Structures are given as C-alpha cells and as structure tokens.
C-alpha cells in the first residue's frame, strides 16, 4: 500500500517533483514517462533514498518522511545499472551482505546465500568475479540480493534495459509474478510491453503525475502524445 499526499521534491532549488497524490494497493504498478519526467525521483522517494521536501508519504505502513530507515528496511530497491548495485567481489559475498543486513546469523549465511543464488539460476557462478557476469546475470544477481532481505515492497528502476528477449522476459516474469515474495512491486520502465503486464500504470511528465489507470489505456495515451 502506497499513500502519497501532495508529495514534492526540490533539489538544489530545482523543482523535480510536484503535487503527487495517490493511493495504490494494486500489487503490480508500472511507472512510465519521458526521460527526465521524474520517474526515478518518485521511485527513490518510495524507499527514502530521496526525502520529499513537502507532502506526506506512506509505504507499507511506514511513514517514509519520518522514518526513512524503517522505510528502507521494508522497501527493496533495484537500480537499472546492476554494476552500481553489486557491492562485493563475488555473487556469494554480495548476497551474503544483504543477508547479514537482514540480521541472519553469520553461520547460516553461506548456506542461505547459495540457496538464494540457486533460485535465480546463479548457483554455478557463486564464486566467479561479479564483473565478469553477463548483463543478464548481473541483473539477476542484483535482484537476488535485494530479495534476500525479504522486502515487503519492491521498487525496480528500469530493471531490463540491458537484457535480451529471454532474460527480459525472465526478469519480467519474476517481477510481474509472485516470485519475489513482495506484496507490492513498482516497476519504472521504458519497456511498454513490461508495463502492460502490470495492474495499474502511472505516467509522469515534467515532474507531475499526469495519467494513471489501466496500463493498456495509459500506454495508448502516452504513445499518442509522443507521436
């Protein structure tokens, strides 16, 4: 459940987001819109990476403005560039890092990490240097590491940009399906096929929420506006 009331963001005196008000309980939410329209900024407010300069925002029952730390525990975030998200040298260590942050006892970590990697088809790459994974494998690893903490809400910012048809479908299936274990998934994407698979779509333009509703209809209006 996401509840935003007049949310605005101003960075360095520049207005980046303004007057976003919405109440969402659809399990799969797509966010679309032009480059620079504020999608990533909106996504970042959801787990407290960006603090709204006005308005109130509640995600998964947590007041994001007042308790950004608790919000980050409840909300997982997947960046579009997996390189930026993979923090340790090998997949096993990287997933282990998330498990530690989730408070899993040290002794259990190797086993749990191996399990998590296996779920994403990365078992045999557990100890390979992460930089040498393919784009698709990196994106899967980033997802595995985020999900390892068991977030109640998952926000993914352009999670399929580097992927081929097969891998994009695989990540798409995971996010749009129930494989992530999250109650609610928010997907920011330029891939309109992926957006179409969600339950509701939001469209941003110039820092404002300008359209929302059935994904098919929101996408059709977006296409019409661009053409």
């Amino acid at each position: 459940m996401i509840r935003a009331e007049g949310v605005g963001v101003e960075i360095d005196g520049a207005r980046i987001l303004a007057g976003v008000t919405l109440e969402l309980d659809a399990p799969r939410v797509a966010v679309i819109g032009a480059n620079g329209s504020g999608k990533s900024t909106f996504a970042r407010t959801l787990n407290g990476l960006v603090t709204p300069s006005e308005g109130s925002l509640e995600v998964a029952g947590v007041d994001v403005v007042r308790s950004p730390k608790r919000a980050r525990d409840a909300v997982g975030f997947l960046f579009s560039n997996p390189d930026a998200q993979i923090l340790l040298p090998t997949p096993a260590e990287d997933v282990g890092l998330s498990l530690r942050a989730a408070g899993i006892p040290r002794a259990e970590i190797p086993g749990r990490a191996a399990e998590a990697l296996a779920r994403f088809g990365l078992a045999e790459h557990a100890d390979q240097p992460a930089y040498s994974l393919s784009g698709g494998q990196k994106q899967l690893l980033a997802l595995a590491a985020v999900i390892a903490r068991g977030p109640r809400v998952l926000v993914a910012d352009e999670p399929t940009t580097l992927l081929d048809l097969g891998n994009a479908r695989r990540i798409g299936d995971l996010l749009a399906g129930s494989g992530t274990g999250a109650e609610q998934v928010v997907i920011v994407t330029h891939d309109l096929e992926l957006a179409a698979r969600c339950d509701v779509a939001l469209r941003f333009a110039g820092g404002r929420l300008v359209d929302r509703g059935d994904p098919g209809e929101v996408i059709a209006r977006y296409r019409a506006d661009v053409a």
Partner: protein
Amino acid sequence: MIALHRPGTSPLHRLPAGAKLAGLAVLALAVSLWPHTAWTAAGSLAATVALFGLGGFAPVVWARQVWSMKWLVAILVASQLLFLGAVPALIGTTRVVAVILLAALVTLTTPVGAMIDAIEALLRRVPGIDAWRVSFTVSLTIAAIPVVAGLAAQIREASRARGVRLGVRSVVTLLVLALRHADEVGDALTARGVL
C-alpha cells in the same frame, strides 16, 4: 567543478597566462630569497595586496584567502615563535603569506582554459614531450571527475538502499567501476581515432 578563477576585465585578467606564470615565478623567488627585515617583509605583503586591487578585487577577496589559511598562519606563527623568536616569526609568516597570495592571485585572474594552453605552450618547448597528449589527458580527467564522483554517489546510494554499511570496502567497488569505465573510455578513444 567550479574553477577557482574569478572572471573579470582588469589589467591582470587581460595579461597573458604565460606572462603571469613567469611573473609569479620571479616575484615568488624574489620574496622568498630576499634577506628580509620586518619592513621589507611587510612591504612585500602590502605590494601583494595592492596587486589584488589592480586585479579589481575588493579587500574582502584577499582577506578571505588569508582567512582560509588561518590554521596555516597560526601554526606558522606558533612554530616559528617557539623555535626562532618573535621578529623572525613575524617576518617568516608575512613572507610565506605574501607568496601564497601572489600565487592565488594568478589563479584567480586566469581561466582554466587559458592556463591549460599556457602550460601546453610551455611543454611544447620541452623535447621528448607530446604537449598535446598532456593537455588532452588533463581535459580527459576533467571530464572523468564528475563521472567518478557519480560512481561514488551510486555506490553510496546502493548501500543505503540495501541497508548495508560497507565502510572502506566501498573503495574496492569504486575502483572496479572506475577502472571499467576507464577501459570503456580507452575503447572509445581508439574507436574515434583520437589516439
């Protein structure tokens, strides 16, 4: 990145960068090596401050420079007082401050581009050095700094988003990302036939 240069139209601003560098070298050496008395030391500082006026700067500009050296000045004075006595401390500190202010004045009145060109011209006279490659590398670095800073910010954000604290280990992640960026830049240099 905001350069330390302050735009202006004063005689000092209009002077070629090469001339200013040469002038700084001569003046800095003179001020440093001259066997100062308290009076000549104070005189060189006064002359330097007058040059700031010639550069069209209000006193607040050099005052701010001195203020930014406050700790340096304090320690200069303290160490020299302790080891050398009052008058030498005064002379020594005045002299050092004058030289630093002179150098800062050149930086304040010369745009980065003009300084790069002046250095390139200087290097062109040194045999065995490809001056263009040097100044090109400097420009490449100026372009790379915000990219590396961006990578560092990404890593900070990602660790926050994941709720983990990496501490100094984050430098390894930064090195990996930055070196991969470098290798991509190397490919782009090759592809564009620049080098």
